[in-house]
């Protein structure tokens, strides 16, 4: 064995030195927070929000129903009704807060986990399940609710959002666009390119990064050694970190970023610092790579709990409200359950549909051949 090979096996001193140098160049930055984990309303010098009791109750209701829907989907996966589910558990405030900041004419580009944002956009939750059940790759018309299809190739939707926003600006419209992505996605070249394009064209887009601190099994340290919101500055637009478990702060910060976009001041990066309380998806086993204590610590910062504490403290919600909401949750769960079970399998000829808008000779040929082939079994079967 050569000297070199020994080096590769055991870290040498200087190698160790480099590793140790990696450590805490970072100090945890200030989060924008308007509601503490204990349910206290606090003020922030740059962001304020003034909601009516009904609006507050609305946000609470959105989060509770989203969580309920999400839990139902997880259960449906366990029952074999879905092939997979990507739970948003723990990220309700980030999604409802940002989702409720939007206007109807704004446009959203989600990842595969934005069930709460979809809810805010008015997409029927059962539509979200088609892809996870395996009956389609996207079960809604994006233009009905200005909510694009779920995108699975990490980061690619940030460029679509940027292009869409360039089009909004060209049209002279004052709507804005939101691109959702995760902490892991921040490493993809496409995301950096979307920062460049949006800055150069001053596109009205908000980059909303839900830093849930994990990309499957990898902690955020595998993606960056400084807080992600700082990434924006080097591209020439502002970045801000918000408490992603504080629905009020998420609403205020997103609203502000959207307003900037509308005013023609270009992109903003919002990093919602939150936590993925569940597994990456139902296929994942987080016990392989993270300690229970971490999740437990974050459960204390639960986004729903803290708003409930606040509502109760302020006497804005009584037992009847919570009971009613519980009933509504149950009926949402039931509706989703029934709808999924009733979801028909697609016709097998759907394989050949919508490959092209204007047709393609080979697709026509293969469709016809396949139909004849299938028919031959029917013949035989007779």
């Amino acid at each position, binding site marked *: 064995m050569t000297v070199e090979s020994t080096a590769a096996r055991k870290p040498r001193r200087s190698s160790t030195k480099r590793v140790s140098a990696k450590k805490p160049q970072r100090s945890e930055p200030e989060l924008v927070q308007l509601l503490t984990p204990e349910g206290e309303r606090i003020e922030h010098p740059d962001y304020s929000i003034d909601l009516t009791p009904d609006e507050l109750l609305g946000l609470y209701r959105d989060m509770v129903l989203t969580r309920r829907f999400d839990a139902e989907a997880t259960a449906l996966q366990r029952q074999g009704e879905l092939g997979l589910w990507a739970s948003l558990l723990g990220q309700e405030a980030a999604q409802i807060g940002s989702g409720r900041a939007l206007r109807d004419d704004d446009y959203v580009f989600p990842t595969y986990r934005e069930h709460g944002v979809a809810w805010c956009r008015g997409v029927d939750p059962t539509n979200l399940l088609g892809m996870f059940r395996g009956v389609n*790759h996207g079960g809604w018309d994006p233009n009905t609710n200005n909510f694009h299809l779920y995108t699975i190739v990490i980061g690619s939707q940030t460029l679509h959002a940027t292009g869409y926003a360039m089009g909004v600006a060209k049209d002279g419209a004052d709507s804005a666009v939101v691109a959702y992505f995760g902490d892991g996605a921040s490493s993809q070249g496409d995301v950096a390119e979307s920062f460049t394009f949006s800055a150069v064209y001053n596109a009205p887009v908000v980059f909303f990064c839900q830093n849930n601190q994990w990309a499957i099994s990898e902690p955020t340290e595998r993606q960056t050694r400084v807080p992600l919101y700082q990434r924006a500055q080097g591209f020439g637009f502002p970045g801000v970190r918000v408490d992603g478990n504080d629905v009020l702060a998420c609403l205020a910060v997103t609203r502000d970023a959207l307003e900037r976009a509308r005013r023609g001041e270009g992109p903003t990066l919002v990093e919602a610092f939150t936590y993925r309380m569940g597994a990456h998806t139902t296929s994942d086993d987080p016990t392989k790579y993270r300690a229970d204590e971490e999740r437990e610590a974050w459960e204390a910062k639960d986004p729903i709990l803290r708003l409930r504490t606040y509502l109760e403290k302020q006497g804005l919600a009584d037992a009847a409200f919570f009971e009613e909401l519980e009933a509504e949750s149950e009926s949402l769960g039931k509706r989703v359950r029934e709808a999924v079970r009733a979801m028909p399998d697609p016709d097998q000829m759907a394989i050949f549909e919508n490959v092209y808008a204007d047709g393609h000779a080979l697709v026509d040929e293969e469709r016809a051949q396949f139909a004849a082939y299938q028919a031959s079994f029917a013949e035989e079967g007779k």
Partner: protein
Amino acid sequence: MAVQKLPLAKAINESLRTALDTDPKVLIMGEDVGKLGGVFRVTDGLQKDFGEERVIDTPLAESGIVGTAIGLALRGYRPVVEIQFDGFVFPAYDQIVTQLAKMHARSLGKIKMPVVIRIPYGGGIGAVEHHSESPEALFAHVAGLKIVSPSNSADAYWMMQQAIQSDDPVIFFEPKRRYWDKSEVDTEAIPGPLHKARVVREGADLTLAAYGPMVKVCVEAAAAAAEEGKSVEVVDLRSMSPIDFDTIQTSVEKTRHLVVVHEAPVFYGSGAEIAARITERCFYHLEAPVLRVGGFHAPYPPARLEEEYLPGLDRVLDAVDRSLAY
């Protein structure tokens, strides 16, 4: 304008101009497409006449170019994107293959993707690495894309019109070494379908099928073969996805010999697909196996070797002889 003799590059320029003029949703995007008019001047003068909002110099990032073009298409625009050279399309490959090609199907037909990607391709101009490649097979294998390549100015003009009008993504491969070749364009003609092949020279003994830059070589080969008493038919395929197999089949049922010619490497190239399918369709007609003439399984060589690497007249004629000798 009506009938005019134009270089192929200028025909595309005119076609883009017409499109910008008639449809306000058409945009031109790419590196250096603005003031410079592109490194081949294909977009020359367009930014001057249509402004920076319609003819857009982009950052140097191909994935970004295609990715934002997708977003613009979602917003109702019809972007015509330029990739500066064949070898630089690969940073955009992910956006093309996983997003652009699949968006229509993913949305169950709700979303249309009228995006044209223009790629000057092929060799023969004495360029450095990455500037002479023919990557069409790498796109034709992917469902959701349409792939075309004109061989002359009239096709360049009309196929571009049709590509821009198509609601599907079209990859438009421009034979860069033919950019300066002049031929007639009738801007008032009624063009045939975009994906239909054309018999450009009739013949009885053997069919040469080619597209883009190799059509000219094949026509010359047919002329040379004629001097030796061989009657060679030349089919300009024009489209690599879909491929107009019917036209090739009709020709081969007559000539019973087929040679497919392209610059791209033969291995896994479009000649393979044509050979496989035509052999299936014409099994009892073929008197020789379908032969293929194309690039070798090697990176495109440095310029001083490209004459040897590229399928030229002699290599085509050699294949014609070998086919007829069966």
